[in-house]
């Protein structure tokens, strides 16, 4: 009768937790069972690596599954809800992921090495177009918002009286200037002149 595989006893064997007889039987099985021998070797390497602080190399199967996850799938369908008035920003779809983690929305043959190159190129072009349109939208939105802001600058209130006096002082030097008008202009910045009264012109 061929003994059963070691299973969890491999860990105990590596850790030296088996009794004398149990250890002898386990080692005898390993000598004839390639599967358990391989598992024992892997367990020892992991233990050694942990003991030395080195990162254990992932198994080939684990690496293969990770690669499959990394391969791009179909674009994620649009979300059902959007925030009102949210700015348009470029969003990259999660490759091959549905809204539920771990589930591919559009399964593809991960082992299909005949994927057409133009398919990927077209997808990239769509991404680029969406990104460019989003960038333009973002820029125009920013410009529209910036254009609504009141013009920045130092608030200025022209000194009416000083400017009127300066006007009179300068033009008063012209020939045939009217001293009475110059004086009225200079007096309180011209404010002493009565305000206009409605006349029929």
């Amino acid at each position, binding site marked *: 009768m061929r003994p059963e595989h070691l299973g969890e006893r491999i860990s105990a064997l590596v850790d030296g937790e088996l009794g004398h007889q149990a250890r002898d039987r386990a080692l005898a099985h390993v000598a004839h069972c390639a599967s358990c021998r391989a598992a024992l070797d892997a367990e020892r390497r992991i233990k050694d690596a942990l003991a030395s602080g080195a990162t254990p190399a992932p198994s080939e199967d684990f690496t293969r599954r990770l690669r499959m996850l990394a391969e791009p799938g179909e674009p994620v369908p649009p979300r059902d809800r959007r925030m009102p008035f949210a700015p348009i920003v470029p969003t990259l779809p999660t490759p091959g992921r549905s809204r539920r983690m771990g589930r591919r929305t559009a399964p593809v043959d991960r082992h299909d090495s005949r994927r057409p190159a133009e398919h990927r190129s077209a997808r990239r072009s769509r991404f680029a177009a969406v990104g460019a349109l989003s960038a333009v939208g973002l*820029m*125009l939105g*920013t*410009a*529209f*918002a*910036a*254009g*609504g*802001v009141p*013009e*920045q*600058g*130092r*608030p*200025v*209130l*022209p000194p*009416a009286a*000083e*400017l*009127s*006096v*300066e*006007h*009179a*002082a*300068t*033009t*008063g*030097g*012209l*020939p*045939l*200037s*009217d*001293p*009475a*008008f*110059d*004086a*009225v*202009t*200079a*007096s*309180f910045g*011209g*404010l*002493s*002149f*009565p*305000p*206009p*009264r*409605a*006349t*029929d*012109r």
Partner: protein
Amino acid sequence: MSAQHAGRARIGSAAMPALPGLAGFAGPVALLAVLLVALGGSAPALAPTAQVEGVPSDARAMDLLERAAQAPASVAYHGVQFVSAWSEAGSSSLVVEIDHRPGHGTTVRSGSTVESPAADTFLPADGSEPSVLGSSGPLDLLAANFTVVLAGRASVSGRAADIVEAQRAGSGLAAARFWLDTETALVLRREVYDERGRTTRASAFVEIALGSTQPAAATHLPPAMPPAWSDEVDYSDRAAMSTGGWECPDELPGSLDLVDARRGGEGDNQILHLSYSDGLATVSLFEQRGVLDEENLDGYSPVERDGRRVFVRDGVPQRVVWSAGGTVFTVVADAPPATVDAVVAALPHDPVEDGGWHRLGRGLDRVSSWFNPFG
């Protein structure tokens, strides 16, 4: 006015709109009231229209104007004068006492009115002269833009006067008339008209006597009008300021030529002052860096015309203020309203209509300026 003015000759004719209260001028008031009844508000009808076109200036008329320009330097006088101005908003009038002594200055005393208190002003005789006129004669601008002719003789305040008329070159309509004292060439009366021949300004002596009542010493004089800003801007300065974004046109609509340029204030408060004239009208353009503080602008009315929004204050002189492109513009003008409108229209303005495209364009300009290292 002193009592010695009593019994002087009275004005022969005048164009007068409604006059305000004339406290302190009891003598001329009765006469002015009569004139007001006879002529009230009818000044535009008095505007002469010679309808002479293409006629060269009369040498005798130019000689008279030259004498008139020089007369204050040698003739002392005092009297009572009315000053009136008409605009689209109405008319304004004031009566002033005036006393002039050559080499000293001119004292002008305005009577109190319901709206304004009495004011005394002293105009020093050594007032500044326009800086950009250069070697041009003082009347060259007038002769270049108008046809100057003799228009007859008349009597003003009992004194014989020659009438000299400046006519517009195109229409031949009178732009101004001067009543010049035959004996001394003093300007006894003057009227200025707009492009349609309507009176915009008038001033005339209702009483005048030769000689001055001012004391020989400069004591007890009213406050003197401050001199013009001393920092004159020459051609190279103007070129540099123009490159730096200041508006420095050599001329403005209405044949207004640049006759003076000065600077006031310092640093961020610097003010550029450009003066323009056609020989009759005068326009001052002031520029300041910043944005007009509209909320605290007192006494001005907002006006939108032809896509431009400005703030206007009628009166003497007329004032218009607005801001565009980070500069506050102030126009102070002794000119016909149409001329002022043309001047304002010729200067920069921000668009009034604020539609989506304007807002977007303004925003793009603003965003691009954020990345412009030279902006």
